[in-house]
């Protein structure tokens, strides 16, 4: 069974004094994969600007543009329509630890097995991760580590910022999905499971009514390598499926940031972000 989902990601930046120019990169176009087909995607900009599109190192579609007219506000609306489905279930006999420790696997995913600024390694975390993985198959360890993260972090918006690391979130015991995802990749990597940070959107309603527009937010979850990429959503523990629209993968948030921008001018006064999802079929 699959869903057809419409996504609208609207960002509105308002500046204190006029911005003279700005340079921006968007990573908002959903990614084609086995469980996801991209039917439509479009971008609306105000002020208007020519968009340059390329694929980055991670295969993510990047839309880049610069605005050279003085502007008090910048509005970016990224829309897409995708068809999503749940991933095929993992085979019962998933890879064992020796398969993951294989030199070829370790080399192929080298950059997804090492710490990053957002997902640092730490002896305490390593101990916890090893404890969770003990006696488990890698697939079971992935599930347990997701639970571990969920049991230690309380979801609370406003307690962390875009720059918060997994360690900081861990120390304070709360965060948002970005922090849940960073902590999960850090733990997985510390037991030798390649893990990547995944950015996208999540439809909040399991029983979504076709045609209803629902307010949501940009979401983050994780994929772990178990012979193939296996997604898990540590923030809520739900299986990743039709409700998840995948946009990008990377080592951490910095590889997939939906919007990066540099501007010259006054201070940023206000940032309004609105994500609306609609199940279309």
């Amino acid at each position, binding site marked *: 069974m699959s869903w057809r989902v419409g996504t609208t990601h609207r*960002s509105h930046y308002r500046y204190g004094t006029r911005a*003279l*120019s700005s*340079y*921006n*990169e968007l990573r908002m176009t959903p990614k084609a994969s086995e469980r996801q087909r991209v039917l439509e995607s479009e971008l609306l900009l105000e002020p208007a600007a*020519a968009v*340059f599109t*390329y*694929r*980055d*190192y*991670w295969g993510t579609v990047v839309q*880049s543009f*610069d605005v050279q007219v003085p502007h008090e506000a910048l509005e970016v609306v990224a829309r897409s329509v995708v068809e999503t489905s749940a991933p095929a279930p993992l085979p019962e006999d998933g890879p064992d630890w020796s398969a993951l420790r294989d030199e070829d696997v*370790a*080399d*192929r995913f*080298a*950059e997804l097995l*090492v710490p990053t600024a957002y997902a640092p390694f730490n002896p305490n975390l390593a101990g916890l991760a090893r404890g969770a993985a003990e006696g488990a198959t890698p697939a079971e360890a992935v599930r347990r580590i997701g639970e571990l993260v969920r049991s230690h972090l309380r*979801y609370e*918006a406003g307690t*962390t*910022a*875009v720059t918060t690391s997994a360690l900081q979130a861990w120390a304070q015991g709360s965060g*948002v*999905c*970005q922090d849940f*995802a960073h902590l999960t990749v850090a733990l997985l990597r510390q037991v030798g499971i390649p893990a990547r940070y995944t*950015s996208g*959107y*999540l439809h*909040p*309603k399991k029983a979504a009514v076709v045609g209803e527009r629902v307010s*949501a*937010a*940009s*979401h*983050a979850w994780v994929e772990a390598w178990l012979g193939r990429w296996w997604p898990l*959503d540590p*923030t*809520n523990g*739900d299986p990743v499926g039709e409700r998840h629209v995948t946009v990008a993968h990377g080592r951490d*948030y910095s*590889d997939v*940031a*939906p*919007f*990066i*921008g*540099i*501007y*010259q*001018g*006054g*201070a*940023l006064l206000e*940032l309004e*972000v609105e994500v609306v999802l609609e199940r279309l079929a």
Partner: protein
Amino acid sequence: MEPVTDLFARYEVGPVWDEMFLESGAARQVASDLHATLRSLSSQDLEDRCAERDRSFRDRGVTFSLAGEERPFPLDPVPRLVSAQEWSVIERGVAQRVRALEAFLADIYGRGQVFADRVVPRRVVATARHFHRAAAGIAPANGVRIHVAGIDLVRDEKGEFRVLEDNVRIPSGVSYVMENRRTMGRIFPELFASHRVRPVADYPAQLLSALEAASPRGRSGAPRVVVLTPGVHNSAYFEHTFLARQMGVELVEGRDLVCRDNVLFMLTTAGEERVDVVYRRVDDDFLDPVQFRSNSILGCAGLVNAARAGNVTIANAVGNGVADDKLVYTYVPALIEYYLGEQPVLPNVATYRLEEPDTLAEVLERIDQLVLKPVDGSGGYGLVIGPHATDEELVTLAAAVKASPRSWIAQEVVGLSTVPTKVGGNLEPRHVDLRPFAVNDGRTVWVVPGGLTRVALPKGSLVVNSSQGGGSKDTWVLADPQSEAPEPATSAPEPILSHSSHPFDAGPQVGPGASNGQEQQQQQARTC
């Protein structure tokens, strides 16, 4: 007739290769004329020539910044000689190295065939600090990423030249090669009469030609090249102004440039002018605040994507630093065979990779006999020479290496060759290395016949980096005695003085209270 004072009275040849003397004490053939001339000089003669040298440098403002202080560039008055035969090996070896590294960079920022073929582990590249994923997919106009290379060589105990490290990011020092030559022409005119020294003054013309060849609009489109400098506070600012002047192109700072719709423009009093090639002397991290450090004002926002769009060429390319990584260095001989199907002309120095536990253990065992280097350093920073380190330094070093083996390599100590060097009123042997400079225009890798010879001035020291207080020598590559047609006159030609290098006012300033902002969105969805 013997001179009253012999400059070589205190010259003792050590256990290493001395470039002037044989073990017997007789002068090597390549240096026999130089030796004879020096023997005819008194200490006072040499002092007089050094005074002339200092005047020459001071007049022209040739300085080097050491620990924040501008000093005259330290040039030893005795040139270093390289025979035509020796040079042909260096020339072939350096060009070969550059060709292999070009292929390597194109590969790792493209398909990554070298990983699939298991020549270099992906891990080595993916964990290199200067592997910039933002460079993936950028195809330079004429395929060149290494427009300029400085390949550091040392000469071992047997007289064989070996590669110590590759510098294909922003190698500096070539201005001193030319300035040293100019000064030597003033202080030792008679030596230029007795030696056929190959000229180095072609370098700016060769560089400009290579940069023009890299223009996305082709060489015929009257490409505009600029030199991008971080500014007067950079230790190599002298070189930036020198090269811009010699090439007759503009010297710009980040604030003089603007990207619009992925096209780069230079702001001038006469309006905006499109730029095709940026010979940048600004590090990757500071080059484009959109891609790298968002607070950098030394570069130009949008520059990397302008290059990606094929509208401008960045020289050297973004991300070249991965080829300078000293762990990657250990694979370069294999890369030469893999990409070129050739045997390396110049061998590496014996080097150990520390990620293998057995090797690490062996290295730690005799850390006091080895040289340890951070893999991502340059200019000699962080390097520890075991035999010269204190016990305390070695303990600290061992801990650092154990904590992060990927961050270090170990090398056998090479007894660098020695060259007569003025120490007080005498000539004494001092250790040297050599940085030849290569320019790649996409068809030919041209190696300037000469290069920067760096001298470790303290007795017995092996640290030659000018950033570490080393001196320099003019490197004389002698013309092949068999060749009939000598190259143009060698007595240090005057540089072509071009129009002012910075004719326009500063670009638009950011007004008071204005700031460069960064915009990001936290991912904070939750679930219901």
